[in-house]
């Protein structure tokens, strides 16, 4: 891991009128690190993620990102063109519902190729070869390349969404409940795949989940949120095995044992 963080978040807050979305969130994320944000529904996880990914303007605070040239830039001071370019090249965003992140009416190949074309790739054969390669990496059979995602199962759609995001070799990927809505065996395969991709590509990732098992498997570090505040942060194993904050203790002890 590099000695400079990739993302610096300081005193980030988001208010919905007088209600708190998230308040006073400060943390740093290093290259290659996977950070899980856990907490119950309504605790502000997704609000925080959207504020980080510039999908929702925060009320206060600042988010700085280290660009490929090594300079830290305040995300909310970038021009819209720069921000959108960043979002489709250096970042990825995996939605809980794959239909939100995919174009359902164009083929799987075009879904994967869209980002390449957006950054100026104009060679059909190369785009298709890259798409085929990526479909293979997310375990989608090559002969499904011309099928629309509508014809795919939930797990396949989610894997396609991941391929679509990773094709431009991003450095940072945001994931909002990536395994939500999948049954356990499909979830296990997806987690396995994600874990492999993250370590192979040296991705940094911020994963929002309410599922502590997902956090345990994927993340190095985790933050526990409650009512818009960070109540505990630390290495994943430490937080899960030796929770300090009362809320975290409650959360960990709520896991059903089979």
């Amino acid at each position, binding site marked *: 891991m590099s000695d400079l963080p990739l993302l610096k978040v300081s005193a980030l807050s988001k208010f919905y009128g007088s209600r708190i979305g998230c308040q006073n969130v400060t943390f740093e994320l290093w290259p290659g690190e996977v950070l899980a944000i856990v907490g119950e529904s309504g605790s502000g996880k997704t609000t925080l993620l959207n504020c980080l990914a510039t999908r929702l303007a925060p009320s206060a605070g600042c988010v700085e990102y280290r660009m490929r040239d090594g300079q830290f830039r305040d995300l909310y001071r970038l021009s*819209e063109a720069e921000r959108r370019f960043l979002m489709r090249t250096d970042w990825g965003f995996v939605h809980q519902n794959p239909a939100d992140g995919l174009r359902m009416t164009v*083929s799987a190949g075009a879904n994967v190729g869209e980002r390449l074309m957006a950054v100026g790739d*104009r*060679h059909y054969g190369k785009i298709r070869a890259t798409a085929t390669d990526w479909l293979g990496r997310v375990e989608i059979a090559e002969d499904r*390349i*011309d099928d629309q995602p509508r014809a795919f199962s939930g797990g396949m759609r989610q894997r396609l969404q991941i391929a679509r995001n990773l094709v431009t070799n991003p450095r940072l990927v945001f994931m909002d409940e990536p395994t939500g809505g999948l049954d356990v065996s499909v979830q296990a395969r997806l987690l396995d795949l994600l874990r492999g991709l993250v370590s192979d590509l040296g991705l940094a990732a911020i994963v929002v989940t309410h599922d502590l098992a997902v956090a345990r498997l994927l993340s190095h570090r985790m933050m526990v949120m409650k009512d818009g505040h960070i109540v505990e942060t630390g290495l994943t194993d430490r937080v899960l095995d030796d929770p300090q904050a009362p809320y975290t203790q409650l959360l960990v002890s709520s896991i059903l044992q089979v």
Partner: protein
Amino acid sequence: MTELATYNFAYLDEQTKRMIRRAILKAIAIPGYQVPFASREMPMPYGWGTGGVQVTAAVIGPDDTLKVIDQGADDTTNAVSIRAFFQKTANVAVTTRTAAATIIQTRHRIPEAALQTGQTLVYQVPIPEPLRFLEPRETETRKMHALEEYGLMHVKLYEDIARHGHIATTYAYPVKVEGRYVMDPSPTPKFDNPKMHNSPALQLFGAGREKRIYAIPPYTEVVSLDFEDHPFEIQTFSQPCALCGAKGSYLDEVILDDKGGSMFVCSDTDFCEDRQAKGHRGHLSANPAEAAE
């Protein structure tokens, strides 16, 4: 034309024409950019060329000679009615000859004869937004134009190749104007796209229902989008025109009977008639000796 004395010249009032001219000037200043304008109700339904008629009404003068074509033909309903409309309301000279016209209003074709400096081609446009069927949000497409994010256009071409093995878009084929804006050339066949490039004529596009005007000034670069390994190609026809024997013009299929018989003739009627008058014959044209009897 005393019974029409209450109409202003070319139907629209002067304030409206002024508003449309301002939009046209802006469109010419920013080639390919869609300028919003306050489109008026015209005495014809949307989809019949209300945008084109308003643009023509705004630019036409008493000395102009007007030609109106519909799919290349001067004698179809749409062309005949619009021509009659301007004859009545502006009392201008009309013609079917491409070379004699100063303003040509067209629906979905560019004449075969090369256009000249000083001529204006007015297109009737149903859907001005090339990204419409790829991105339904108008706010988003405007942003994409502003930020020059045109990757999505190539997604459509990619889909064509993936499904059909070649770029199957044959009309409304997207072009990039002056290296900046991606533009829908109205539903002209892609056969006509190369004619837009560096044309000496002024090209104006009016979309009445969608309330947009855009333009290509004379001698402007117009490039059809494509892939490096699937370059842009225009349609070719295996046989010449059945009436005038022209090769390399755009042909329409005309059904002759209910047994599958058909003939291919030039869609540009003026071009075809001109060639026939010069003695060119296709394999189905009437024998001049028989026709004379």
